[in-house]
């Protein structure tokens, strides 16, 4: 099934070295993503389907897509569950 997400409105973002810091002011929560999860975050703002994200990251990290698919899915599922990502609207497609 095709899944496309975008960054939830109102989430504040700061790059800090290789980490990405996210802040949801509505629940006063900070989430710090490591470099790999940060790459997933950057690619999930409406432009790509989840399978495309997996493919792009596999190319960047020079790994088979099967090796990273579950990790990427897990990061996206967690970010969706915690409200940092939301399902993409049609307007967000780039």
């Amino acid at each position, binding site marked *: 099934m095709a899944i496309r997400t975008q960054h939830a409105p109102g989430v*504040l973002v*700061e790059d*800090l*070295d*290789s*980490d990405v*810091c996210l*802040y949801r*002011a509505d629940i*006063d929560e*900070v989430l*710090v993503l*490591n470099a790999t999860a940060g790459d997933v975050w950057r690619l999930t703002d409406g432009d790509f389907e989840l399978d495309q994200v997996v493919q792009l990251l596999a190319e960047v990290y020079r790994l088979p897509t099967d090796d990273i698919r579950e990790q990427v899915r897990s990061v996206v599922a967690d970010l969706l569950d915690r409200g940092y990502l939301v399902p993409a609207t049609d307007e967000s497609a780039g």
Partner: protein
Amino acid sequence: MSQLSLLDVTITLTGDRTAIADGLVALGSFAADARCTGSATAVDCPVAAGTTPGQLLAELTRLAVEHSPRLCLHAGVVSCPGGTVVIPGSSGLGKSTLTAALVRAGFGYLSDEVLAVPRSGGLPARFARPIAVGPESWTVLGLDPAQRPADGDERLIEPEHLGQLGVPAPVRHLLLAERRPGGPELVEHSRGAAVPALLTRAFNHFRDPGGSFHAVVTLARQAQVWTVRYQQAPELAGLLAERWL
């Protein structure tokens, strides 16, 4: 009428004159250094008869951090030649004892309770209140046994009795402290780890959550972040003094 200027807040003490006078004497240089006015924000601090100096100090601190235009975070703060050292932490984790041990080891005292920085960036304020020390910490710090407070009690110590006051400087070290058995350890950590550690200890970030988040990231960006593990505060203070003094 007595007025104190703390963290850019003018606090007017009203009520029982004796309790106010006794409290200000007991708060020593902290109160004497704050005897000026002119801050944009002004609040009253009613003082009832029988208020102890410790209670007055707690109320002054509460009012200052609640009304300060600065971003105020719960932390011990000391200075060293390279800049300012910050130990974020909640009450009861030994933060004041560690701060006192660092001052006894030669660091400059800035605060045992509050890191207060301008939201748009700048130097932390000195909030050098007396440190409340209980009997266990009194012994750990090696203070005069004859003056040791009774069990369940605390004694306010003026910082000058522990060491020297610090000069505010840019934040250079953020210490994420953990108590655990064994000798002291200092391990460098990613800066990202400091962001939730700082923001969850903020007293007044609710006024501007987004701006506070950016301010905390800016603090982390300019500092080295360390996990420190220790059992006894003076041992860790000695290790840090060897490294940074």
